[in-house]
């Protein structure tokens, strides 16, 4: 057991408070850059975050090199998803028919509010007051916990990372590793304040044990259980859930009532398609060959109930967006986040949205183009996300396309609009351009000024300015090769 002994130990959250995420200003645009700057101002957190996620990326690469058919698998996974999405109505109805035949109650929810009220009704009918659940990005998207709290239902997250985030009152910062932005000292603090563990003991085994001791009785006594789903198999009506902690199995098997909340894009046609996706999912996510638990739920246990809530919440609309529909292929592995150099240095909470990182940049604006209008600009368009994506979503190209859409919708800052208009005008006119670049007595030739000027002269904050040369290439050319045009 390791104990904190000194306040100046690297990573001690006593000297480096945990950075918090983006400030939520209602419908006003999230300032991802501002939140990222605060994350960077906590170097222990930033370094741990960057290195941890980079390690996951490297492990993913090792898995890739262990499978000669890796690129074929990506092509197949993409094709299966595109096929399913192109015939979504057929497969949804097939799933419903087969699930019903298995004794499952199937519900359809058009949006978050409908989903939450369906869940609430199902709980009410059984008189359930406590709900244990495994991790689900969809329930985050729907704000389920807050709605159930209002209805007097206590929700207990059973995934360790998700439980840490719940106890800390924070959203998950990553789709697979929800508390990856925290140091273990942060977790010790949260647990000390919420489940009464020793604040000075940040040994991960101790922390996991303390959480287990505190949560197990709640799990054993819960009235109802909820899981998400990684895959829905249309031809069998089966729900497939992948976890590493086995917590989804507890949620599904201990209480008599099992509710599955799932987005309609999680369908695959056949059981044999799992051979592709199960092999890709954990390899892409954590660089492990498979999750510890891959559980197939086909129907209620004897004397129990199983409900599946199929949730749209904007997905049909996204399916109709020519440039963005393939974002629905996403299997939520988080590989794009792990590889993203911006995400690793910003922390997932800087995005101020349910989905962070590259996939978030292209999904979040479909929920609220104004609120998430800055997100597609929080990218260098480097394209690494697209290359690691196991279902070949052209993420960086969709980020680029979103920028154009947001400019068309006027969801961009005035200063940027003005600068780009001015730059476009200068660069369309050779004589004006020439006069602008070759004004010599300025500290900075004004060509980069259009790129650099944003009122704060942000380039120079953490970087030196470029050194303007004595003459431009054009001037050199005229002087040295003047006759040759």
């Amino acid at each position: 057991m390791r104990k904190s002994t000194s306040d100046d130990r690297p990573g001690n959250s006593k000297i480096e408070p945990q950075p918090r995420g983006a400030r939520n200003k209602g419908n006003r645009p999230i300032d991802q850059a501002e939140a990222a700057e605060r994350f960077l101002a906590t170097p222990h957190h930033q370094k741990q975050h960057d290195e941890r996620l980079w390690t996951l990326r490297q492990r993913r690469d090792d898995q890739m090199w262990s499978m000669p058919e890796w690129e074929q698998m990506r092509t197949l996974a993409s094709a299966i998803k595109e096929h399913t999405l192109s015939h979504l109505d057929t497969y949804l109805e097939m799933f419903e028919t087969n699930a019903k035949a298995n004794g499952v109650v199937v519900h359809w929810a058009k949006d978050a509010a409908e989903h939450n009220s369906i869940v609430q009704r199902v709980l009410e009918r059984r008189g359930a007051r406590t709900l244990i659940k495994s991790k689900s990005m969809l329930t985050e998207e729907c704000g389920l916990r807050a709605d159930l709290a209002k209805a007097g239902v206590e929700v207990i997250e059973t995934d360790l990372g998700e439980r840490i985030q719940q106890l800390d009152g924070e959203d998950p910062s990553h789709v697979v590793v929800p508390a990856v932005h925290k140091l273990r000292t942060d977790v010790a603090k949260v647990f000390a304040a919420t489940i009464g563990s020793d604040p000075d003991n940040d040994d991960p085994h101790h922390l996991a044990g303390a959480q287990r001791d505190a949560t197990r009785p709640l799990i054993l006594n819960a009235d109802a259980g909820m899981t998400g789903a990684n895959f829905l198999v249309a031809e069998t009506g089966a729900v497939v859930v992948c976890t590493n902690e086995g917590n989804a199995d507890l949620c599904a098997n201990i209480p008599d009532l099992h509710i599955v909340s799932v987005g309609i894009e999680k369908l695959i046609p056949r059981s044999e398609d799992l051979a592709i996706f199960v092999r890709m999912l954990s390899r892409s996510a954590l660089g492990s060959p498979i999750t510890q638990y891959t559980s197939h739920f086909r129907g209620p246990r004897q004397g129990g109930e199983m409900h599946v809530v199929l949730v749209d919440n904007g997905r049909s609309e996204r399916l109709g967006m020519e440039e963005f529909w393939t974002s629905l292929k996403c299997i939520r592995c988080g590989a794009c986040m792990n590889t993203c150099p911006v995400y690793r240095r910003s922390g997932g909470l800087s995005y101020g949205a349910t989905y962070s990182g590259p996939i978030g940049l292209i999904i979040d604006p479909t929920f609220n183009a104004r609120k998430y209008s800055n997100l597609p600009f929080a990218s260098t368009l480097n394209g690494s996300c697209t290359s690691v994506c196991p279902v070949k979503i052209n993420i960086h190209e969709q980020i680029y396309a979103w920028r154009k859409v947001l400019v068309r919708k006027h969801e961009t800052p005035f200063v940027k609009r003005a600068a780009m208009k001015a730059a476009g005008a200068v660069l369309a006119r050779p004589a004006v351009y020439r006069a602008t670049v070759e004004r010599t007595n300025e500290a900075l030739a004004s060509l980069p000024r259009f790129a650099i000027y944003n009122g704060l002269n942000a380039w120079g904050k953490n970087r030196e300015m470029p050194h303007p040369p004595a003459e431009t290439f054009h001037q050199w050319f005229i002087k040295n090769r003047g006759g040759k045009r």
Partner: protein
Amino acid sequence: MKIGLFIPCFIDAFFPEVGIATLQLLERFDLNVVYPPDQTCCGQPMANSGFETDASGAEALFVRNFDGFDYVVGPSGSCVHHIRHHFTAVEQTAAVEGVRARTYELVEFLHDILKVDAFPWARFPHKVGLHNSCGTLRGLGHASASELREPHFSKPEALLSKVGGLELVAASRPDECCGFGGLFSVFNESVSAKMGSDKVQDFAKAKAEYIVSADSSCLMHQRGCAERDNVSIKFIHIAQILNGAGA
């Protein structure tokens, strides 16, 4: 073979030595290299930021300047990536499509079109870290990317391996973006600068004396970070090494 020399705006304004090296290098291969003096920019800064309509003037001018050449060659991967893949602010006429198809980044022109097998005039006895910009790596396919399961290849490495005395050293995160990203560098300044500092540190740990790239924009950004962080590492464009700088 008549070549249009494309000198992107920021190379014209900040890195004339890169333009000069490109011109001189191409002329070593007995090509008829022409510099259209009315050129400005390919339109990338506006289009990359979403302001595609503001790029239409620059794109139309680009086509007027470079129509009629056998090839258009420029020493900037990200600009050529824009021209090849994103140059859609103007109507796609036959002239526009022709110019887009005939525009090459310098490394790929030397490697794929001229198939240069020697640079006898070049010698560069230094440890050099190669920075593949994201535009050249994942946009133009200069090299195999570390994220994909594909056989290793690298056009810039193949060219640099023909330069006497040059020793390539590798960064530990070979394909990590350096964080320039156009307007990203100012609107997301803190993350951009951190990425640049990390990149420079990674090369410094590999004991690189120089960082070489086919993109001056990445080099401008990394140099700014290195100078601020007091990391003594030098920056040079691949055109300069191939043209015999330091020989």
